[in-house]
């Protein structure tokens, strides 16, 4: 059993109460949780997806830039927040597991605990109309 840090537990609980899509990963980038509003955009229930390594979720949603060119993991806001410990923002397209392409904007920020503990990162995202 991996005991999650209390900040991560509270972040998940907060996310589960909020109406905006939220995606939570651990320091290694492993998906820990996404909430119900995120399920609508990702096209799959979290309970069916479960925890997932970075390499998998960074590809499974097929992120592409607005012009359709593939985005490498290191260009994604969540990965930037995780690896560079700073906030990041980007508009890009994903393909949900329901097969629907959606244009989204995502803002990600790192979760930094007391004592210099890197706890993971969080992305808040929402669907936007293609410009």
């Amino acid at each position: 059993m991996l005991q999650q840090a209390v900040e991560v537990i509270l972040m998940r609980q907060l996310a589960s109460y909020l109406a905006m899509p939220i995606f939570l990963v651990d320091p290694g980038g492993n998906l820990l949780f996404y909430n119900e509003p995120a399920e609508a955009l990702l096209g799959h229930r979290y309970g069916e997806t479960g925890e997932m390594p970075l390499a998998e979720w960074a590809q499974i949603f097929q992120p592409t830039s607005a012009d359709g060119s593939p985005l490498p993991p290191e260009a994604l806001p969540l990965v930037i927040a995780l690896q560079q410990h700073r906030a990041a923002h980007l508009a890009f397209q994903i393909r949900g597991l329901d097969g629907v392409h959606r244009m989204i904007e995502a803002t990600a920020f790192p979760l930094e605990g007391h004592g210099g503990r890197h706890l993971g990162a969080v992305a808040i995202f929402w669907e936007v109309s293609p410009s």
Partner: protein
Amino acid sequence: MRVTLWGTRGSLAVPGLETVRYGGNTSCVEVRGDDGTLVVLDAGTGIRRLGEAVTSEVRRIDILLTHLHMDHIQGLGFFEPLIRPDQEVHIWGPPSTTLNLRSRLARYLSPPLFPIRLRDLPCRLTFHDVPLGGFEIGRLQITTALVIHPGPTVGYRIVENNASLAYLPDHEPALGVDHFPGEPGWTSGFALAAGVDLLIHDAQFTADEYLLHVGWGHSALPQTIAFATKAAVKRLVPFHHDPAHSDQVLDRLFEEVCSASALPFELTPGNEGASFQLGKPRLA
């Protein structure tokens, strides 16, 4: 190790005829290692009487604070060993990104709230941020983690040989959880409490009272029972009793819990003065 309760009350000291048995002093627990190592968990008003019982043969005292709410530090200035010139005292508390522990405690231990300043205490006083993870004091192996309570709050697990204690006096692991307790890894404090011989845990409210105090950082007794069951502890000591709960009320609450169903652990209500030997007693 031996564990003794010197203060079991939550939030506010409530001396009086109606609290004689469970006690009116706020949180303070003495942990004595088999080699005589003295660790004090929290410095509520109960620490005053403990101070009178600490002989000058004890060269070092470590006070581990869970957090800095008033009911957990109020007795500190009345802990007699602090005015012994040769006494070595170490105070440990949760880390902060703004002020160090000495500065945060000095907000209380200085005029106008207190007549004496920390720097004027004659003992040899050292302050430490609690390392989140683990450390050792004497032969006591101490594991720490932040737990759910307003403001940074540390829970402790103390192990000596095969004996184990978990101390979570202010803890609301059910906050925001639809079906408590959930998965162990996503339950605050679970790893600290898992399988311990003795769990001292917040049980401030009744189930009805909890509904009026969600987010205050405390547990209802049924939540504490559920947490202890999930963590498979051997003995539970409900602790941090609400100031409004008289001996009579607490008797009734614990009787109701014990008669409702068979518990998978021994339940011993937190009485001031209660003492527990964990593991084999030290040979004289």
